[in-house]
């Protein structure tokens, strides 16, 4: 090449590279200029944290996936956007037998999949069969098999005859669910969790066997759903676009035309995207910006209550945490109000009990109460006056800016108030989870978020042998209360049992509750009709955009 062509290449090369595929960023459509007022497409651009693993409701467990699934599928029963009580979804009505064992659902007339074919009882039965089939290995299968008669045997492979399972269709418009024992919150589960959603079986079978995982049926172009929206486009790590489903039975009441889900993995980048008007709503806000927004743009920041609790989990088999006086002392020596005011900033509620208050009418009465003097006294009684002689406690947390700040603040509180010195250890997410599941920790930061709005969700995990009871704490009285609660004859009785359970947890402190979560996020003032709720369900049906 001649020298001149070298120079030309040097200049043109980069220009050629810059002009790659020219896609446009999702922007809000400007109003149509002049002429008759055209219908401006109503597009909600929704920051959704991570790229979803899949959008098949039976093989996912994450929150980003849940947001997309609520747009694409509807259940038999849905949740009321204001207070989450069960309202008709694909089922127009239902009856519960007097003994609470049989639920009969009547399907609405004229319900269709997004490809126009009718939704039938077969779709439901085969979907439920798929959900509890061992080969599919769905992580949420227990939300069916723990309740339904014969389902657990089917799941464990003891029988392959689905007729043995209490899921039947007595006629083409009716579904009948028979339970092992009365489950007071079954409708809440079905209304708030996608585990019971029906899938388009004919479509699934086009791309593989019924129990095959992760086939091509969820790709754009193949996908069919039952919800207010349907999948139009899926560009990995860029966006998922869902558009109005004209075959949805209630589409007349859906005002949004399109929702764009953007994977905004980095919390700081997400906030910048919001400011640059690339998204209309974020999932989180960086901690340091919460106060700034509250001060300068209070119309943009929202802090919704959320059904979750942040706590420090103690491994009660390891000294010195095997002594409940030590645990109680540590629990008392944390200034939760200061933590929330100065460190977490998100208007969270301090937690003095495990159960989240205001959870569909349940508020725990038990509280961890005591002064710093009480804490010091307990510690001395346990044999460590002023903290002397206490073996080192290591506090494990998964790497995150917020966890680190909270841990540092608590470390200092314990040092100043009790003379207890703890060691902090952060581990990468999977290593941290592995440490948790193999109980290779003394104390670790943890959170628990409800799958459905019922106090049972927070209390059942402390039963002996429960897979999520990584504290290894075991209390026979508590265990029997768990079973009693499930057999309670009405909600009031059940809630009283939960009060007793919370009291035991407050007394024993296998975990040290810190605060109840809130969901701080940013949302543009153009978004109207959003229903804040305890389950972080986006309820896209109620939203519309205004310019």
């Amino acid at each position, binding site marked *: 090449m001649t020298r001149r062509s070298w120079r030309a290449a040097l200049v043109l090369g980069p220009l050629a590279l810059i002009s790659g595929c020219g896609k446009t960023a999702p922007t809000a459509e400007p109003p149509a200029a002049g002429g008759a007022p055209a219908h401006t497409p109503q597009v909600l651009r929704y920051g959704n944290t991570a790229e979803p693993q899949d959008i098949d409701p039976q093989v996912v467990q994450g929150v980003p996936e849940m947001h997309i699934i609520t747009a694409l599928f509807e259940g038999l029963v849905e949740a009321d956007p204001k207070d989450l009580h069960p309202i008709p979804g694909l089922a127009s009505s239902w009856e519960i037998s007097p003994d609470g064992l049989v639920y009969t659902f009547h399907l609405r007339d004229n319900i269709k999949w997004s490809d126009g074919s009718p939704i039938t009882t077969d779709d439901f039965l085969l979907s439920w069969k798929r959900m509890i089939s061992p080969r599919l*290995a769905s992580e949420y299968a*227990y939300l069916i098999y723990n309740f339904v008669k014969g389902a657990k045997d089917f799941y464990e492979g003891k029988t392959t005859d689905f007729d043995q399972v209490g899921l039947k269709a007595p006629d083409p418009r009716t579904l009948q669910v028979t339970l092992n024992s009365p489950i007071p919150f079954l409708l809440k589960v079905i209304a708030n969790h996608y585990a019971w959603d029906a899938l388009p079986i004919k479509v699934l079978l086009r791309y593989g066997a019924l129990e095959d*995982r992760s086939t091509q049926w969820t790709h754009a172009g193949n996908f069919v759903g039952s919800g207010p929206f349907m999948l139009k486009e899926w560009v990995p790590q860029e966006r998922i676009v869902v558009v109005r489903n004209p075959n949805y039975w209630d589409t007349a009441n859906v005002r949004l035309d399109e929702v764009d889900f953007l994977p905004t993995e980095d919390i*700081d*980048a997400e906030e*910048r995207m919001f400011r640059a008007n690339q998204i209309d709503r974020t999932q989180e806000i960086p901690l340091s910006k919460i106060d700034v927004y509250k001060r300068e743009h209070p119309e943009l920041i929202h802090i919704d209550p959320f059904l979750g609790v942040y706590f420090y989990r103690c491994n009660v088999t390891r000294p010195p945490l095997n002594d409940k006086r030590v645990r109680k002392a540590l629990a008392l020596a944390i200034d939760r109000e200061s933590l929330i005011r100065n460190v977490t900033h998100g208007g969270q509620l301090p937690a003095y009990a495990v159960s989240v208050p205001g959870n569909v009418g349940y508020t725990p009465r038990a509280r961890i109460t005591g002064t710093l003097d009480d804490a010091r006294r307990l510690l001395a009684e346990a044999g460590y006056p002023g903290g002397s002689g206490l073996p080192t406690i290591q506090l494990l947390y998964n790497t995150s800016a917020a966890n680190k700040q909270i841990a540092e603040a608590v470390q200092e509180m314990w040092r100043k108030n009790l003379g207890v010195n703890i060691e902090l250890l952060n581990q990468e*997410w999977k290593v941290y989870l592995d440490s948790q599941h193999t109980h290779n920790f003394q104390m670790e930061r943890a959170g628990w978020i409800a799958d459905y709005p019922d106090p049972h969700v927070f209390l059942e995990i402390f039963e002996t042998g429960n897979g999520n009871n990584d504290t290894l704490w075991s209390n026979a009285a508590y265990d029997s209360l768990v079973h009693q609660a499930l057999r309670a004859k009405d909600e009031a009785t059940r809630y009283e049992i939960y009060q007793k359970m919370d009291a035991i947890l407050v007394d024993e402190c296998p975990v040290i509750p810190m605060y109840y979560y809130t969901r701080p996020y940013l949302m543009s003032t153009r978004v109207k009709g959003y229903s804040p709720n305890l389950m972080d369900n986006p309820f896209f049906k109620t939203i519309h955009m205004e310019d």
Partner: protein
Amino acid sequence: MIRFVLQRLLQTIPVVWVIITATFFMIRFVPGGPFTAERAVTPEIMRNLEAHYGLNKPLYRQYLDYCSSILHGDLGPSFKYPTRTVNEIIAEKLPVSIQLGLLSLCVALGVGLPLGILAAVKRNTWIDYVCSSFAMVGICIPTFVMGPLLILVFAIHFGWFNASGWYSPIDRVLPSLTLGSVYAAYVARLTRGGMLEVLSQDYIRTARAKGASESRVILRHALRGGLTPVVSFLGPAIAGIVTGSFVIETIFQIPGIGREFINSAFNRDYTLVLGTVVLYAGFIIGMNLVVDVIQVWLNPKLKFE
């Protein structure tokens, strides 16, 4: 030279095989697996999941299966995103990272080389200090600071760019400036150092004595030898830059393969880890070969050995 290249390509085979084997066993000994999740997974579900992905077979069997599928060019399905295959993921994301990488390289060379040469030629004068200092900016301001800074100023305050994304040509500007600035610093400093080594050589003095113009002396004679350290550095650096930068892709939300290198490890996505490692190995080996060839071309005294 052909013999040299062929020899190197032949050596590639055992190298890649060692890399695959080492990585395969490394990722399986790390705590936590692809299905480790916050909610406890019951032993039955874990068993069934592992059966589905073939993780319940004995380790050597899994290894052999993987090797044979690689020989067919099939890198397997991703564990984290099971509806997509590793081949698909790489095919979608690599071109993005290559674009970003090459643009950053243009910035790095376009800024770094002139600064380095100027600094060397005007050694210990104020021009040298200014050029060296300017080059240092790329290292003093780490990418995770410079990126957000550029976004805050030019995208949010002035509104000239998107805050993130990879949609239109203009989105290439801020990320490549950020990534390029770091490499520009290395290029400038190594060029200056290399040039200084050469500028004091006898043959340079001879060229000057013979009456060659200064620019000819520099560009024709000094640059060849002076570029040696930069070229050695650029081999692995280019492999790194075109396989994407985790930090840049996260800050600017760019759908490149750089994020997957780190994320696949964090997700314990066995197949994607192996796929990205094989990809990177290919680039490293290729670039080191290219660099070695260029070294000989630059310095005719060397021979292919």
